[in-house]
């Protein structure tokens, strides 16, 4: 298993898949910020102003982190940001289900689905992949090498 996780091609593939899904999620939201702002507000955690500013900034964080992850620019940091976002999404959907609020997740703009248990499972799978990238010592195919190679 350790060899598998340390395989540089597998790590590159993971970077492309995880980075790619973040870029896709970001682009669909950047295309229609107001619609995403409404999705954010529907979670009923923040008001109009915070929903607006979350909706215009969050997709850009996803986009930059996704691009950095694939390009290997600050690979550890981008994996950390992606993991952090996924932990946040999992917590958010969990709290939403517990509160009994029926919302579309807003994950992929118009193509979003319901925020349900299956979504938590999907996000957990993404989180595992992101954590592998975060914890792996791999440093190949990166634009900006890590300072200390293990």
């Amino acid at each position, binding site marked *: 298993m350790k060899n598998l996780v340390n395989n540089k091609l597998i790590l590159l593939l993971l970077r492309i898949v995880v980075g790619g899904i973040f870029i896709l999620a970001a682009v669909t939201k*950047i295309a229609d910020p107001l619609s995403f702002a*409404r999705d954010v507000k529907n979670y009923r955690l923040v008001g109009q102003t915070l929903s*607006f500013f979350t909706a215009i900034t969050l997709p*850009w964080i996803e986009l*930059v982190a996704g691009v*950095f992850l694939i390009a290997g620019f600050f690979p550890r*940091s981008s994996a950390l940001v992606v993991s952090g976002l996924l932990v946040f999404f999992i917590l958010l959907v969990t709290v939403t289900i517990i509160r009994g609020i029926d919302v579309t997740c807003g994950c992929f703009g118009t193509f979003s689905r319901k925020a349900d248990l299956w979504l938590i499972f999907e996000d957990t799978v993404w989180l595992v992949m992101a954590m592998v990238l*975060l914890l792996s010592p791999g440093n190949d195919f990166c634009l900006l090498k890590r*300072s200390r190679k293990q």
Partner: protein
Amino acid sequence: MPLKRILTERETWRGVLVILGLSFMLSAVVNFGLIKRFMAGEFRQAFVSPDRHPGLVFVSLAETEDLWHSGLAVFIDSRAAADFARGHIPGAISVPLEEIKRGNLSLLEKIPRDRPLVIYCEGGDCQTSLLLAEFLSEQGYRDLRVFSGGWTEWTGTGMPVSGEDEKPGK
């Protein structure tokens, strides 16, 4: 590499700052116009852009009552058919958003294009009235008024409900 070490490394956090800083910068540049409009007070009631949905406005209970009494407007109930059957604003037409989403566009034939439309759903945080209004806007309807107080506010003030003789739009 252990997580603890990753989290204590300066380089990790420098990278996080670069990612966040770049994201905020890009967001501010790309959304400059939108931020300006928000700061000027637009989108305070709802995230609906008048550029994309011209003629879509929100109306209060008092305005809705006036429109109902005048008989000029056609009332559209966007809730599920079962909710409509239980009770609705007298004279309202049932156009459940879920039916429209299922592709049942024949419901649109009942909606006149030359009269103001007042669209409502349950009230509170319900979204179907606004979503239906946006859909109708895309279909070319140009006088759309969303009554955000909805059925809850209407019944709360003792206004007539379905079964009354008085019908608007007749």
